[in-house]
């Protein structure tokens, strides 16, 4: 219940629609409850052979039916929309909120989990609202009105109905719960066989290369028969549901016919009254059944709402604070002051301090896991330092409006993310009003231009989900063009050219030199040869800055950097030597 109270504001937003819907529902319920009465009257009128009476009551039935159809239509269109509207609003709210959450949140939470909350959980909540609103209200109204009418007709028959009919609700609740549990097992197993098939098809080369086809078939068949077993165990129960409903309703009808028949014989009930009562039984059946469903859905709806709230109420860790300073333009001076970052209890690095002058290039070098990406993520505040300060233009990044800060940064991440859109749209992604001139310049510098002939529609080629139709190098160069296109004061290249061949890489660097001259650049690479021309090189090692200086300075210092560089040269030098030897 705690969780469901968060639905309050959403419901309140549609209060007038809900109230109108409920009023319409009351009218339509009244009109449907009155029909059996007219049927009973019509039958009783047959005792006095007058066609006029009969026609009168039949006319009343039809009149009530027409009005009821009309009100029922109005009520449905008013009320049944509410759950869909709320679903829409909730989904939008979740999306907006997700946009404010920081990278760490996405690292902790799996995409699949988040997707499940925004799809399955959202639809469970929607179903609950829909069921709760329409069925519960309808059930309530029906139960109250019909019970009163039943009791006035015959309290004995009413007693039978009240004893027998609730078994429908009970069996829905009891059976439904077990069925849900078994169905979940079915779905899990279904997930497993789909994954198994998917992995097999994607890895078919390996399967074939290692001649594993027969063993794969056996493994699949095993999972498949488990799936059948679970399905049948579900069917064994689910097959009971409707036969039980029919049995219970039939039982009520039979008993009413028997007891009611005796009452008609002894004169305490009219035949029309008996028919009227039978019709009421039919009217109560569906509300009783749906009551059971709603009870089951309540639990699920509340749990699902809880999972959605977990997302909606997660506080954005990185956001503008009240203390932001207005900053017009960023020139690009970056300063790290005793910066430290930790994941859980483990410090990635601590006490990192250095300054990057505007317009200069600083390279960050270190082994995998030294924290190069982490360090660079601090500048556009994708990540926040756990201690120390990062300053841009002398201002703590936490006091610069996020929007201004990020607009100043062009970021090319290690594993670049492209959108399933055209190349053009991807390159001009970060610009509000892209000009063709800027677009082509970015395409040229990133050496993307010469690939364009390969694509059927040039820049208007759709790159497919995550850019699947592009090679690794093309993806990286598109991401590079996207960053250049923003004309940022600060350019961050995080191992941005690992899949680009050395020849193209050299040309990109040459092209970038023109661009880099005016802006601050932070760059990391796996190979020192890519970055040795940087103005300043920071070597991250063992949780801190091990060395800092220019390429030459660091070589002279003959420390870690020099060792790494020698190691890298080793194989290449060998090859050069050999090549020269042969050519000599």
């Amino acid at each position, binding site marked *: 219940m705690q969780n469901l109270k968060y639905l309050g504001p959403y419901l309140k937003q549609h209060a007038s629609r809900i109230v109108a819907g409920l009023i319409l529902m009351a009218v339509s319920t009244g009109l449907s409850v009155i029909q059996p009465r007219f*049927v009973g009257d019509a039958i009783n009128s*047959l005792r006095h052979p007058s066609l006029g009476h*009969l*026609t009168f009551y039949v006319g009343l*039935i039809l009149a*009530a*039916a027409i009005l*009821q*159809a009309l009100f029922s239509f109005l009520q449905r*269109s008013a009320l049944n*929309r509410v759950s*869909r509207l709320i679903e829409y609003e909730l*989904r*939008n709210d979740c999306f907006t909120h997700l*946009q404010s959450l920081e*990278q760490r949140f996405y690292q902790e939470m799996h*995409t699949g989990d988040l*997707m499940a909350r925004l799809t399955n959980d959202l639809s469970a909540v929607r179903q609950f609202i829909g069921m709760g609103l329409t069925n519960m209200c309808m059930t309530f109204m029906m139960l109250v009105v019909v019970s009163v009418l039943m009791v006035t007709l015959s309290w004995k028959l009413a007693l039978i109905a009240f004893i027998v009919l609730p078994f429908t609700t009970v069996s829905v609740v009891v059976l439904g719960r077990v069925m849900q549990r078994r169905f979940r097992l079915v779905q899990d197993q*279904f997930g497993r066989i*789909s994954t198994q098939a998917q*992995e097999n*098809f994607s890895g078919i080369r*390996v399967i074939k290369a290692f001649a594993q*086809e027969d063993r794969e*078939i056996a493994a*699949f*068949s095993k999972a*498949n028969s488990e799936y059948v077993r679970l399905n049948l165990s579900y069917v064994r129960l689910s097959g009971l549901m*409707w*036969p*039980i409903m*029919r049995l219970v309703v039939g039982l009520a*009808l*039979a008993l009413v*016919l028997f007891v009611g*028949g*005796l009452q008609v*014989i002894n004169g305490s009930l009219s*035949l029309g009254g008996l028919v009227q009562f039978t019709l009421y039984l*039919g009217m109560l059946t569906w509300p009783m059944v749906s009551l059971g469903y709603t009870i089951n859905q309540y639990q699920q709806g509340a749990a699902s709402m809880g999972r959605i709230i977990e997302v909606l109420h997660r506080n954005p860790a990185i956001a503008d604070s009240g203390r932001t300073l207005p900053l017009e333009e960023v020139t690009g001076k970056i300063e790290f002051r005793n910066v430290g970052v930790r994941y859980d209890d483990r410090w990635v690095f601590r006490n990192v301090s250095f300054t990057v002058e505007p317009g200069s290039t600083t390279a960050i070098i270190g*082994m995998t896991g030294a924290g190069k990406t982490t360090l660079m993520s601090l500048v556009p505040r*994708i990540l926040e330092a756990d201690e120390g300060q990062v300053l841009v233009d002398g201002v703590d990044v936490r006091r610069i409006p996020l929007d201004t800060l*990020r*607009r100043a940064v062009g970021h090319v*991440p290690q594993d670049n993310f492209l959108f*399933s*859109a055209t190349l053009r749209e991807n390159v001009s*992604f*970060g610009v509000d009003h892209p000009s063709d001139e800027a677009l082509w310049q970015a395409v040229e510098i990133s050496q993307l231009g010469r690939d364009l002939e390969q694509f059927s529609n040039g820049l208007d080629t759709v790159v497919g989900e995550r850019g699947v139709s592009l090679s690794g190098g093309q993806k990286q160069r598109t991401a590079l063009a996207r960053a250049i296109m923003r004309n940022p004061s600060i350019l961050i290249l995080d191992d941005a050219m*690992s899949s680009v061949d050395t020849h193209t890489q*050299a040309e990109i660097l040459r092209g970038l030199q023109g661009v880099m001259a005016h802006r601050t650049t932070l760059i990391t690479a*796996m*190979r020192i*040869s*890519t970055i040795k021309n940087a103005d300043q090189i920071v070597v991250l090692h063992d949780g801190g800055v091990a060395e800092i200086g220019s390429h030459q300075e660091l070589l002279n210092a003959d420390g870690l950097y020099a060792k*790494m560089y020698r190691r890298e040269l080793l194989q290449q030098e060998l*090859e*050069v030597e*050999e*090549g020269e030897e042969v050519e000599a």
Partner: protein
Amino acid sequence: MRPHFDNDQDEVLGKAYDGRLVRRLVPFITPYKRRLLLATVLLLLSPAFDLAGPWLTKLAIDQDIYPVHHKPNPGGLGLILVLYLLTLAGGFVLRYFQNWHIQHIGQHVMFDLRNRIFSHLQRLPLQFFDTHPVGSLITRMTNDIDALNDLLTEGLVSMIGDFATLAGVIIIMLLMNWQLALVALAVLPVVGYVSRVFQRAMRVIYRSIRVRLSRVNAFLNENITGMVTVQLFNRESTMFEQFDRLNSDYLGANLRSVFAYSVFMPIVSFLGAVSTALLIWVGGHGIISHWGPAFTLGALIAASQYTDRAFQPIRDLADTFNTLQAAMASSERLFGLLDQVQEPPDSANPVVLDKVAGKIEFRNVKFGYKPEHPVLRDVSFTIQPGESVAIVGATGAGKTSLISILSRFYDIQEGQILLDGVDIREMRRADVRKHIGAVLQDAVLFSGTITGNIRLHNTDISDADVRRAAVFVNADKFIEQLPDGYDHVVRERGANFSAGQRQLISFARAIAFDPEVLLVLDEATSSVDTETEALIQEALERLMQNRTSIIIAHRLFTIRHVDRILVLHKGRLVEEGTHEELLNRRGYYHRLYQLQYQEQEAAV
């Protein structure tokens, strides 16, 4: 920016019955024909029990409660009650078992189909997988098979069961009172027509709901995975606008379905009231005006109950057409898959070599994925047992094809490939691949454990073998640092391992299977730090020792370590020799070397 998602499933509406497809479906059901017969009998019997209620009501009213010609007979009511309860119990049992048998058949037919398709796919040539996206294959295995299950468990039940119920209702009513039967027959077709119109509209609406929902979800998924990019480029509001557009499209489709139901449901209940009113009026008229002995109060009430019971079957039948249509479309796609030509069968009298020395010989080999476009022409060479050979060439020279035909992923069009003097086409594919192992370009890992990934399903490879293989290729160092070591969980696609680690595991896999000949596709490894790179190179070197090995080299390092280099150019073997020899020759290799490898050095 408009999102481009290609999720619109090909739901082409076709015929609801296609004799050719149905004939092909029959063999899948024949194994269960006894059970199907039983289910059909139960299905035909159950209306008799279901429809007894109104008849008993009529008897109770006309003979016991409100008889015209004699006094009421309270004693008779007891008998009616007993009969009523018996038919209820009978109906309960029949319906439950009928459903159980039908579902049982459905599940087993689906099981057979899934297995059949999976096994069929295992034997398809690689070319098939190059041209068919995995996603659509999965859809075949799930949605399309489900559609066939619907055909059995809903379509068939509806066609037989509902039809039987309807026929029962009409026959009983005609026997009971034909005038009242005519009234019902006037209303029921209207219900059928309205239901059919509704179902047709809903089919279109449901389809747009599905399509729009999958667009919303694809966009959502993309934005969640790329959220940092969105934030870095300040695109939150543009992305939200796009999302809102997709979300409100989806809402629109849903509201249309709400509207359709809001119209349909009241119409159906109105039709119910109309039929009741008409029956009362006609029946009442008949009673008052003494039209005949068939006009009794009991008949009137029973007629109204019978008409009521015919409503649901009619609505179901209206939906059956959709079920049939979907099932036909699905079976068309499924049979399309099963019609894909499998790899040609292994030779009837295969040559089985127990252990091979590892001599490989290409004799005038010609091969093309399409025979009219050969990618390898007249290629001949011999590799001695234990020799290591690198194959180099520009992109498209045919290097990968050479590996593929040697593993018999594809058969060649002309010439011969011999292993220890035996044409590999005379051997079983599985044996060829047992002797000739391959390390493939993209190191594919499966979800499971590290051990499972090294030995795959091959139980002949012991835990100790797995460890030995890992140690041999330098993979043990990082594996032993993992919390669960060799039992460490590998997520889908090996997502929790780095590219370098994945490569080492795939080396270990190749070694664990211990082939006499090893093929290595050595992809230029990106984003691998110098440390891991060194491990990989060392492992490669060890892999090649004392084993016939053919390596497609992207690294200068590996080229330097092989005994001989074969140079491919446009599908032909143009040069061969050692690195030094080839450089000295100053031919194609020399140019290739300058173009591809020397640039690495230029950067130094």
